[in-house]
């Protein structure tokens, strides 16, 4: 009897194992085909010279040499970093302030305000780029220029000037993502016990002190999270500049990003070797940036915990 039960238990455990492998297999099969194989093939292609049709020839580090000696690549990397910082860093400050206000108990129409601020996130990046493309058109009569003129400033050629294009694209990124970050910070604030503020208020702490000594420290893990997302997202910037610049997207360099450089190499210039080399360099940059990020915010411990739990 005891033996029989043990036998049944065993077969049950084996069945469970088979089921489990079966259930996780779809992900790994798809990953092998459209994730792992392309990633490995990219690494291989980065060392080949290939126009997409003929034979590949092994060229060693030549592709990396070409890319790293191309001023356009460095310009693209510089643009990506500048627009990344201008588009995402102000979001942290404004997002924390907005979340702090939205979390106030006395606030009326809380849901309406929250929905309005979140609304831009629902729109696609293409839609945002097209609408802002008209707002920031290079005409003197562009709405953005009209507003500048109202304040006595000169019109800007938003699509063709070095800083005009960067500022316009950063504003787009900011506008679309600020609601998202605010919502994350709001979730963080809601996890802070209310009596902490109550106690601070009784001790005579003003709004600024509350922000500085309660809100910011307890919000830190959430800020780390958004900084991480923003950094990775900013390094992959492609849609906004491409759609914003339209016909001239790949012929000018004021707002060309690393991914646009990659795309141009591969799909306009049919130079798939250097395109892949750029992809590998991008991977390297993202890994390094994430590591620096994690290190600077000293969130290594916290992240580890989040993954485990």
């Amino acid at each position, binding site marked *: 009897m005891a033996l029989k039960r043990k036998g049944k238990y065993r077969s049950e455990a084996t069945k*469970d*194992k088979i*089921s*489990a492998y079966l*259930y*996780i297999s*779809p992900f790994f099969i*798809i*990953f092998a085909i459209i*994730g792992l*194989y*392309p990633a490995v*093939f*990219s690494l291989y*292609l980065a060392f080949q010279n290939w126009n*997409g049709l003929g034979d590949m020839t092994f060229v060693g580090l030549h592709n990396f040499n070409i890319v790293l000696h191309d001023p356009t690549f460095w310009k693209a990397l510089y643009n990506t970093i500048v627009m990344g910082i201008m588009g995402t860093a102000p979001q942290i400050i404004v997002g924390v302030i*907005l979340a702090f*206000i*939205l979390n*106030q108990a*006395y*606030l009326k129409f809380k849901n309406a*305000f929250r*929905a*309005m*601020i*979140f*609304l*831009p996130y*629902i*729109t*696609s*990046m*293409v*839609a945002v780029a*097209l*609408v802002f493309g*008209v*707002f920031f058109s290079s*005409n003197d*009569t562009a709405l953005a220029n*009209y507003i500048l003129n109202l304040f006595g400033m000169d019109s800007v050629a938003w699509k063709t000037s070095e800083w005009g294009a960067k500022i316009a694209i950063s504003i787009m990124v900011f*506008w679309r993502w600020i609601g998202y970050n605010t*919502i*994350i910070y709001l*979730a963080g604030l809601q996890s802070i016990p209310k009596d902490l503020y109550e106690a601070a208020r009784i001790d005579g702490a003003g709004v600024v002190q509350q922000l500085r000594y309660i809100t910011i420290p307890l919000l830190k893990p*959430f800020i780390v999270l958004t900084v991480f997302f923003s950094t990775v997202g900013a390094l*992959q910037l*492609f849609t906004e500049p*491409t*759609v914003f610049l*339209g*016909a001239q997207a790949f012929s000018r360099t004021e707002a060309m990003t690393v*991914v646009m450089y990659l*795309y141009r190499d591969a799909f306009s210039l049919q130079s798939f070797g250097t395109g892949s080399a750029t*992809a*590998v360099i991008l*991977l390297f940059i*993202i890994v390094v940036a994430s590591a620096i990020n994690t290190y600077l915010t000293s969130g290594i411990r916290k992240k580890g915990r989040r*993954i485990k739990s």
Partner: protein
Amino acid sequence: MKKQWKIGRFFMYLFLVIASFLSIFPFYWMFVMATRPSAAYNAIPPTMTPGDMLVENFQKVLEKIPFFGAMWNTLVVCLVVTLVVLFISSLAGFAFAKFKFPGKNIFFISILLTMIIPPQLGLIPQYFLVAKLDLLDTLFGAMIIFFLNPLGIFLMRQYISNSVPDELIEAAKLDGCSNFHIFRSIVLPIILPAFATLGIIVFTATWGEFLWQFTVLRDPDMYTIQVALSSMNTTSNVDFGMMLSGVFWATIPLVIVFLMFNKLFISSITEGSVK
């Protein structure tokens, strides 16, 4: 002291009102431009009230791009991707939450690691893979790379291990239920709220997707709406009224759905990133 608080409140409201205005103004302005001729754009002072070309501008959109076809293609892509991701993620999440098997942790960590790979790394080989399989200019080609969603497995594992009691599964096993039967009749009904969360995240993200479809779709009849919209902006002499009309009609369905379910939307997006 009290007066100071009143002033503080006033400035907080002011800040919120300005922020809300800046958030919704582009939507209003897009609507205004969608009802005006392109020349209205050059008016000084700027036009801020709707005109009478709402229908006319949209007719021009229909002449320029296959708008409804593109909306339909996008809907198909989003629905299929969402269903496939929900299926794969819940099944794998179930396995990671409730089964013991060798290599479980290694498998799970390797799924999390795949999140670090930037999608652009595989872009070129993925393009050639899809070309080789003769899937360029097909909706299946446009959706295939989005079936991979490590975040979905992570969320589902989390939800299943918290909300499906082990006793329930044990009891069903004693009754002789197969594992897949347990998944279908016990786990699935319990995790429906998580389906809503993950479904909203995946659907919204897929709706806005651009780079991949821009790469694999060249035939205008197969365009998704994002590629179709962007194709309006490739000539230097664009009719702004027409272009923003297209953007307006492509944006409005999602905005309406969002306004109806905004609490669910917002909590889904929060859960997707904070959990």
